[in-house]
């Protein structure tokens, strides 16, 4: 039995320790916002935060998680109004939208660490997330917008 701290709540999980967090989230606990894309940590669709750091949940066995804080897209904000979420909506970033929870989690982790990243830093932080629809230019734009929204929130 494992107790996972997800979005601020403890969740008891009676599964094998080698099960990746992705499948525990999706199939056992029904947090389906975190997506499967490759199962090998190659595409970033499954990105969640572990203690605030962007982490690929598809290759993360639950046995290594102790009391680490796990945040999924469902827990990124209470009202869907994290600056990244606002920026994504405002610029109509998504096309199919499937990779976007992972993209937003990577972007939010970047902004938590670096309040105003430049293009190169954005590319570096985001190059682990594939978007087949090709929303990269808008993701970049949205991250810049999110930095502005964050500083407005802090300023007000």
């Amino acid at each position: 039995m494992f107790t996972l701290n997800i979005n601020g709540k403890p969740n008891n999980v009676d599964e094998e320790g080698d099960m990746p967090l992705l499948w525990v989230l999706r199939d056992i606990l029904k947090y389906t916002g975190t997506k499967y894309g490759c199962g090998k940590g190659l595409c970033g669709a499954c990105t969640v935060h572990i203690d605030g750091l962007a982490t690929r949940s598809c290759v993360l066995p639950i046995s290594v998680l102790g009391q680490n804080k796990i945040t999924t897209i469902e827990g990124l904000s209470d009202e869907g109004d994290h600056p990244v979420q606002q920026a994504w909506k405002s610029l109509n970033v998504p096309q199919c939208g499937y990779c976007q929870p992972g993209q937003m989690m990577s972007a939010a982790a970047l902004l938590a660490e670096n309040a105003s990243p430049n293009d190169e830093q954005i590319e570096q932080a985001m190059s682990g997330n594939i978007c087949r629809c090709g929303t990269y230019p808008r993701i970049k734009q949205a991250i810049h917008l999110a930095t502005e929204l964050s500083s407005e929130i802090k300023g007000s």
Partner: protein
Amino acid sequence: MQTINNVSRRKFLKALGISSSALVLSVNLPGLSLLPKVFAAEENPEKFIPNVYVEVNSNNIVSIIVHRSEMGQGIRTSIPMIVADELEADWQQIKVVQGLGDKKYGSQNTDGSRSIRNFYKPLREAGASARIMLEQAAAQLWKVPVGECKAIDGKIIHQKSQKSVGFGELVAIASTLPVPEPKDIVLKNKADFKFIGKSNVKLVDGQDIATGKAIYGFDVELENMVYVVIARPPVLASKVKSFDDSQAIKIKGVIKVIQLEDIKDPVGFKPLGGIAVIATNTWAAIKGREALKIEWDVSHHSSYNSSEYKAMLKESCDSPKKILRDKGDTTAALANASSILKAEYYVPELVHAPMEPPAATAHYHDGILEAWACTQTPQSAQGTVAKAVGLAPEKVFINVTLLGGGFGRKSKPDFVAEAAIISKQLALPVKVLWTREDEIQNGYYHAVSYHKLEAGFDQNSQVTSWLHKTALPPIGSTFNAKAKVINFEGSLGMIDMPYDIANIKCTAGKADAHTRIGWMRSVTNINQAFAVCSFADEIAHARKENPKQSLLTLLGSDRHINVNKEKAKYGNYGEKLKEYPIDTARLKQALNKVADMAEFTPVKENGNGMGIAVHRSFTSYVGCVVEVSKNPQGHVKIEKIWMSADCGTIVNPERVISQMEGAAVFGLSLTLFGEITAKDGVIEQSNFDSYRLVRMNEVPPIEVEILPSHEPPGGVGEPGVPPIAPAICNAIFAATGNRYRKLPLAQYNII
């Protein structure tokens, strides 16, 4: 074209004056309406249903039924924009409802870049007829002439008396009225459009996507559902000789292992067969599959090796089995030419790789089959499933989820049939999930192709003859194992080559298919535009002319081309040539526009090279310029992409631009990295490490402009892809003097 029927004109006897206070409805709700529990929770207001696309509810909500699949092109936003505009609905009262698979909607096959192209007019008429009936209902209510009643923003207004009434309050009367005859449907003036042609609404699913609530095929959950992963034959059409599941069933969570029926020719949309692992979760199913020991009775497709196949295609080009277009006397013209240019191009097999692999959930119960799937084509899923489980089509209900990308893969419903068959066998709700490896190794591939082109010049460097010989396995082979020569594929960028040349010949050789050949975003336009637009650039350099100027010369005078007069059968994407001609003026306009945007010059002062291409596909015209830089080590970097798009009348410009951006990225991936290869019939790539897609750091800025047009709507999702690869290679040539004729570029180690 569809005519509008009052499919369910219910007569409501209730008096007017129904309370309709709470009008404001978030347009972001509909994602959840995909799930059965939400269906059950729907309240049931009185409805006015003038046609299959619109329902006006007594609570003032206007439901717009989107019958096409959303896969990123924005159709769940664009269709409501069309209907709401003609209906004069307030955007805040719109609720988007995803249509089930049902032939009453007309075609739901969301491919071929035709959702707007085929439904713009019927959807406008659907909105307009509802509006006319609501105006008539108000006239009846107020006993005034209908000409004095006008729909504005969700209300009918009687200006003389300053009276107004919400749509919802007119439901009962409107439901008693006859549907207007087509001749009596008056559409709005374009100048009065409030949504069409504007970019003033947010994505309908934007909120759900941003919060992780959007439901894709992978996300459907039913009570007591089991999860299924299938070991499919690594070589197409191989059979299970024997298998040992003793280790698999020991894995915690694995419930059962079952053998599926082997596939028979033609493969079509039938499941591939193999061994299915049934489990309580996906991970257990994946582990169970890894623990299986399967011996395959390998089919003749094990002879498929990509390097030998390439050599075969090259030879096959020289033994044409079909002449696809024949104008003048190309053989004689080439013999008499004062000089000849020859070049050969190769584009490997490709796979779709949508971020969401195929997935379907099915529940066979009480003599019906319900399915929830990320399908591009719910009606063919319905037909395929009905056949697979032995039910009448009307007993099969296909719910369309959001698609995590489609690109043509999800218009093949084999995965829905798998779920249906297994649900019937187990008498349980099942979800079949394809892993990335499954998606890459058991796909419906974009055909590998070889092209040989020759151009003959006269003494003045004018092109007098054009010969294009190709060989590739046809899509038809998926549906008829005996098909070995392409058919309609010639219409996708080969026989519609628009240059003004006196002698033109296009031929196709034969090629046996060894994988399932399918269609992928822009289909054979990918390789044919690569060959044609690269060769046009080679012609320009051969005659030492600016490539843009050379293209203008090749395109010739403003005219409509009818290749059907040149021993060709041109498909024109299912459209009439009269309405959608091949128009050289529009090609030139797109070319000039993109050249202006980029300030096109083959070699810039800083040494950067620019490449240009223009291509018509899916009745739209897209020009592209790419700029590349080079470093002293000989590596090139793509600096920028410009695109001009003439897609005729535009509904949602913002989504058209996003589709062009996406097409550029799609084209970039296939140009740089796209290559599926087979060894002994087994696909060698398996995941994003071996089948690379471009990442953010590999994508340059992309600038898109839409050319304003009053022509009928053209395709949007696909036409951006074809010009990208040739524009990139033309730019690399301009920068380095090296011509790359075989994709992908990764093999040359220059990027």
